[in-house]
């Protein structure tokens, strides 16, 4: 792929340094393909090349002037809108005291989402239009969740988006972020998002991602989180849409007494493919991480879960748990799951487990034997499986919305 050496991109005036680095990286290495161990099951670069050809310049055209259809009913939040990766202040709604900036003079950009980590991070660094930065002031609490809405406008043609977001959480602040990925139209979109989260000392934060794009969407997210001492970070990623979705979530526990919770739910059908790669990096002692990803796969859909946990030599007294559970609803669906624990410290508690199987016939029969139809019994069991993750979302309106979206996408009105 001819990704680099595009002079007009290098003519961008901002972030010159990282753009040059990104350009050099891509010229040398390109995007990772199937030969790369990390992309063995997810050939996203060849799919992009097939769809978009060799140049991956973000789309600039969009006349989208309203976003009400993407708002979640009864979800009381501030919302920040990006269309095709570009910041749309005029479509957003937030109070002046929320520190939102589209031209941050910020030395933090690219410090955790490093160019050399991954070709997709480099690709984003080369092309992103503006970096949307949200800063939560020290010791402050945002009174409503902040909902970042990303819309791929594909009403008239394919689109390419490179959203770039920086979230800076001040010491002892408390906040809850939602990121929604949506499509407007039926053409193919490629969204390559980079989100950097700096979780300050003793901050409490949540990042809930809702991937609800059309089934033509190709999406790669790159989420990098750096946690400081005593901080608590909670990630939930719900993937319902997309043709091919790859989520890289990297959490660095960079000090002591940190808590990290990583949850995921992916429900797929037809030929959908979702790949979650997570890295939890325990660098210092006395921290806790807990990870649970669950999948429901129907038809010919495929899923990948790769969970890396690093416990560095000095990270004694680490507690790290990981689990991946999948239900296959068809014989053609498949999941590749791989836990990868690398532990250099000796006084730690770590565990991992994964299960993949059909629905439990015993459970279905038990419900039937109480007068509940087989169809409804299946739905009850699946709903229970989903809600193991969804119930961790703190806003009921969002959970209700996801329940409805699951029914809309996968069928079956419940009860």
């Amino acid at each position, binding site marked *: 792929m001819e990704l680099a050496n595009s002079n007009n991109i290098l003519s961008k005036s901002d972030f010159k340094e990282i753009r040059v680095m990104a350009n050099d990286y891509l010229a040398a290495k390109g995007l990772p393909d199937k030969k790369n161990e990390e992309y063995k099951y997810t050939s996203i670069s060849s799919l992009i090349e097939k769809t978009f050809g060799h140049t991956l310049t973000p789309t600039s055209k969009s006349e989208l002037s309203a976003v009400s259809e993407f708002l979640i009913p009864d979800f009381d939040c501030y919302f920040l809108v990006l269309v095709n990766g570009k910041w749309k202040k005029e479509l957003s709604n937030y109070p002046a005291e929320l520190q939102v900036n589209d031209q941050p003079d910020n030395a933090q950009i690219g410090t955790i989402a490093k160019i050399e980590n991954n070709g997709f991070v480099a690709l984003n660094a080369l092309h992103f239009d503006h970096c949307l930065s949200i800063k939560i002031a020290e010791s402050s609490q945002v009174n409503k969740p902040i909902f970042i809405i990303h819309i791929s406008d594909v009403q008239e043609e394919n689109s390419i988006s490179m959203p770039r977001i920086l979230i800076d959480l001040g010491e002892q602040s408390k906040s809850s972020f939602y990121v929604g990925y949506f499509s407007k139209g039926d053409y193919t979109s490629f969204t390559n998002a980079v989100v950097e989260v700096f979780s300050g000392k003793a901050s409490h934060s949540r990042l809930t991602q809702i991937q609800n794009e059309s089934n033509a969407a190709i999406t790669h997210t790159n989420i990098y989180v750096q946690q400081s001492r005593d901080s608590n970070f909670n990630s939930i990623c719900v993937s319902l849409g997309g043709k091919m979705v790859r989520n890289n979530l990297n959490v660095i526990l960079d000090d002591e007494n940190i808590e990290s919770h990583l949850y995921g739910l992916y429900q797929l059908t037809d030929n959908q493919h979702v790949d979650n790669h997570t890295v939890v990096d325990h660098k210092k002692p006395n921290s806790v991480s807990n990870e649970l990803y669950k999948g429901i796969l129907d038809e010919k859909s495929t899923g990948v879960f790769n969970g890396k946990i690093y416990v560095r030599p000095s990270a004694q007294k680490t507690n790290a748990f990981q689990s991946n559970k999948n239900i296959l609803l068809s014989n053609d669906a498949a999941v590749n799951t791989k836990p990868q624990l690398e532990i250099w410290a000796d006084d730690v508690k770590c565990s991992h487990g994964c299960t993949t199987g059909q629905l439990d016939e015993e459970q279905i029969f*038990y419900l039937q034997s109480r007068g*509940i139809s087989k169809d409804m019994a299946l739905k009850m069991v699946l709903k229970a499986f989903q809600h193991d993750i969804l119930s961790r979302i703190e806003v009921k309106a969002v959970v209700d919305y996801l329940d409805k979206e699951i029914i809309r996408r996968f069928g079956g009105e419940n009860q």
Partner: protein
Amino acid sequence: MLAIKNLHASVNGIKILKGINLEVKSGEIHAIMGPNGSGKSTLAAVLAGREDYDIDEGSITFLGEDLMGMSPEDRARAGLFLAFQYPVELPGVSSTNFLKTALNQIRKHRGQEPMDAVSFLTLVKEKMKLVHIDQSLLSRSLNQGFSGGEKKRNEIFQMAVLEPKLAILDETDSGLDIDALKIVANGVNKLHSPQKATIVVTHYQRLLDYIIPDFVHVLYDGKIVKSGGKDLAFQLEKKGYDWIKMEAV
């Protein structure tokens, strides 16, 4: 109420039931006893409609209808209830929601309106007393993390709410201490009436001290080899199953 005629059933080609004949009338309590592996639980599962079993021969009619053509849910709606030997855990399925769904499905079948939340709660509170179930169990996932005794009591509690015509208790006594056994038996007795019938499947005579059967049948090698009154249970308790086996041969 229930008529089983020459019932033959197998699982994966292995014959388990080899010609069962049994008639149960309204108001009767039948005990089915027998050594391990005699086919007791298979009989209970076949009656409830488990799909793993093949019916090779014979017939089962329940309230005049051919039971074998009915799905498990239709059997339950018609008034058949199986108290499981091993109640299944359903993580994430709320006990209350489950029971309300089940009850309303059965009510719908009977041509009744769905029960509203308030009446349901009143009903549940009343029935919980019967088996000394704590209300906190209802706020938990169905059977998840319940103790053995709690699971068995929960089965009888469900039976009390769903009000079946025929209750089949599959080894409901297994794993219960004497106090829990009394509670469960007392619940079963209170739910029994001249319009209803009960089949108690058990290995031990112990339960029959508290649930007094009208008839006792001994199942051995897939057949009922001996039937009698409640005295038969005492004989089995004293002499074990060996003499029956000898007679059967």
